[in-house]
């Protein structure tokens, strides 16, 4: 067994022990779980939401839900505490993306001429942005473009292309079947091509 897998197993054992204590009402154990996993959950949330205040809200929501869901968590029926927590986080991000779709803050008409020109250039040249200023512009523009997609499409593309997760892991995180993940991924890429096609 490699050192990394040994460390993973040790970490899982600590999580299980803390989860059991927190379930029994030990608030200090719950705080330890929060401290152990907050950064990872924030990074995961940051894949879907590009505003620090939104990421902070998601972290709050995830750990509050986790507190009340601890009674349903069982080490026997779940892969690991970390995987179970990640699933809660993905669902929270998915719900936030759906809420954001219902109150759209941007539409295709909100793209500035500069953004359209930049995008057209990128699509033609297929070159990435190199400096920080371009990266910031790219992040906002990328977010506007991805906001045109349905929440399901954005979720699966983010997990596939953003996190680089295999289909099986995405199925475990979302509760979808492997087939559904594949179908959604195909549809999501088609939808993104249609969105980008308006600027090419």
């Amino acid at each position, binding site marked *: 067994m490699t050192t990394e897998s040994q460390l993973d197993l040790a970490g899982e054992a600590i999580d299980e022990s803390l989860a059991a204590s927190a379930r029994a009402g030990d608030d200090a154990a719950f705080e330890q779980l929060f401290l152990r996993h907050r*950064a990872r959950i*924030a990074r995961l*949330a940051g894949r879907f939401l590009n505003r620090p205040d939104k*990421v*902070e809200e998601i*972290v709050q929501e995830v750990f509050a839900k986790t507190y009340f869901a601890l009674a349903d968590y069982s080490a026997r029926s779940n892969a690991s505490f970390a995987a179970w927590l990640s699933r809660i986080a993905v669902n929270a991000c998915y719900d936030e993306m759906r809420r954001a779709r219902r109150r759209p803050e941007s539409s295709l008409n909100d793209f500035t001429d500069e953004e359209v020109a930049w995008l057209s250039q990128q699509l033609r040249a*297929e070159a990435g*942005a190199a400096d920080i200023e371009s990266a910031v512009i790219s*992040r906002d523009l990328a977010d506007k473009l991805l906001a045109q997609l349905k929440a399901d499409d954005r979720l699966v593309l983010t997990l596939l292309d*953003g996190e680089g997760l295999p289909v099986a892991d995405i199925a475990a995180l979302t509760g979808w079947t492997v087939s559904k993940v594949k179908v959604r991924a195909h549809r999501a890429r088609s939808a993104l091509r249609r969105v980008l096609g308006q600027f090419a």
Partner: protein
Amino acid sequence: MGRALIRASALGDAEAEEAANAPFLYARIRARIEAERRADERASGWFATLAVARRAVPALALVAIAAAGSCWAIRPDSQEGPPPAGALIEARLAQGEPIAVVSACSIATKEECLVSTDDVLALLVNEGEQETER
């Protein structure tokens, strides 16, 4: 381009971790937990009783109105209702038919069994006068 967009739209790891290390974040989580716990307790307490009563009162009012309506529809002074008990008894007496004693009558019906004190008194006076005339 799609992959580049996905990665470009994401918050950097450093920024995300900074959000996770926000001051008082855990305190805010605890406050949220306590607020949800209080909301659950209220929901299972007397607020729940009030909520049920709020729905039950209109339903009970409808039942009361329906019951009152039925009582009104079968009230004894209705022109289509049965004749007064006294008139029925006199008719039976005139024909020499026996009248069921009160103990054998059904008090749930408004038939000739149900007689008032005035009816009985009137009958007795009536009988007395008839005997006197004979």
